């Protein structure tokens, strides 16, 4: 990990009268894994969508430092994978390259097949998303994200709807591919504290702002009172927190 890679300053977003992000500041170090945690509906996905450009923030700046300007710089892994159901796994993974880059069919096929091998999707390459398992869909979506060699991958609750065993295999997959491909991860997750095992720092989003930012072990050792209840729901029912 070295230096700030992505800098968010004064980021604000509201939907009608509801303030979702309120002059939020956040620094993402290069080649790091940052996990954004917080209650449901607090605006974690909105934050990711603002970073990726799907949503336009009302105010604030998102700036990249030390970027190599590759296109697209961001890749986004959606909660439900967002694979095109009328394209097979090969075509889904090939889509960003096929549409944006000037590559020959042979070269495209070579690059996609290499990724398919690395992701262990050899048997699923010609299958449609509806014909493969949830874990395979995640890997196919990751393949589509990786094919354009992004500098940052945004993961929006990648373990939603998965059983505990699959959940850990997705975490392992993210960890090992980050090591292998060397990208920066920003992830939104509800899997606290399991996700702390793979993340470098945690950003706690509350009332539109980042209330805590730092390594997960520090957070676990001395959590802020309000976050203690979130980290361990039992605490919030046993003891009222301010």
């Amino acid at each position, binding site marked *: 990990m070295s230096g700030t890679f992505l800098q968010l300053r004064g980021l604000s977003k509201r939907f009608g009268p509801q303030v979702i992000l309120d002059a939020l500041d956040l620094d993402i170090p290069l080649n790091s894994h940052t996990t954004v945690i917080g209650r449901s509906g607090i605006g974690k996905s909105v934050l990711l969508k603002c970073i990726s450009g799907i949503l336009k923030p009302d105010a604030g700046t998102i700036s990249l430092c030390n970027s190599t300007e590759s296109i697209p710089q961001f*890749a986004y892994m959606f909660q439900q994978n967002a694979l095109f159901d009328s394209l097979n796994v090969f075509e889904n993974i090939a889509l960003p390259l096929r549409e*944006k880059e000037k590559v020959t069919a042979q070269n495209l096929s070579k690059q996609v097949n290499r990724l398919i091998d690395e992701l262990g999707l050899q048997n699923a390459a010609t299958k449609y998303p509806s014909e493969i398992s949830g874990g395979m869909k995640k890997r196919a979506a990751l393949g589509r994200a990786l094919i*354009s060699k992004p500098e940052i991958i945004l993961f929006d609750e990648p373990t939603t709807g998965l059983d505990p065993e699959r959940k850990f295999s997705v975490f392992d997959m993210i960890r090992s591919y980050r090591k292998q491909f060397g990208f920066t991860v920003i992830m939104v997750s509800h899997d606290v504290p399991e996700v702390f095992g793979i993340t470098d720092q945690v950003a706690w989003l509350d009332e539109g702002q980042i209330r805590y930012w730092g390594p997960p072990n520090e957070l676990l050792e001395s959590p802020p009172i309000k976050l203690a209840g979130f980290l361990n729901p039992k605490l919030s029912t046993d003891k009222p927190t301010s």
Partner: protein
Amino acid sequence: MFVRLGRKGISFVIELGELTIFGAASLGSLFHQRHIFEKLTRSIYEIGVRCIPITLIVGLFTGLVLGLQLYYVLTNFSSESLLGQAVALSIIMEIGPVFTAIMIVGQAGSALSAEIGIQRNAEQIDALQTMNINPLAFLVSPRLYAALICFPILTAFFDIVGIYGGHLTGVSMLGVDQGAYWSRIYEAVSVKNVMDGFCKALTFGILTTVICAFQGYYTHAKASIPGARGVSQTTTRAVVLSSIAILSSDYLLTSLLLEK
């Protein structure tokens, strides 16, 4: 009541503006992408080839009914020999473009709206944006250009089959002279009439494709219910609005074209 009416009026004008921008952006984005020919071919298959059977069936029955109706009207004036002219002009200038457009909306337009709506709900459109792929160029513009190609061609099919349908009723069943039927068509139908019909078909093609794609694309914002029911709501609205657009623009175009 006036406040509500005013609000409705303002929201209608806003939606009309959004629709125009959406259509213009889609039209302009075709050449800002790769594999245009492949996408265009697929869209022509979806909008054009798959609509041929329904167009031919409806065209045939329309011609049959028109031949029958007009025959009995013309008999009152002892002008049965004008049947060919009456059938051909009605079909080429009015019924052909309008019915063909309505048939395509029913088959391809509703499918387009539902498909894009489902893609919106499944975050596939957001995924395209994150991949730096213009969703309008990728999803809408090939269909729009395919509609521009297919609507006039399908209208021509409808016209031909419809005229033969009129011939079947008038000449084969009711005994109108075959020579009179065809010679009247030859005398009465000008190139301008045919071009006017195609002009209508092109207009209907743009209007209906933009409306159907727009409703699907903004299903998350336009439907009052999210999810599958929202998609069904916007698909229904797409078909209804397209039909209204066809009939209202037909009136406008007819008055403009007849004035010339």
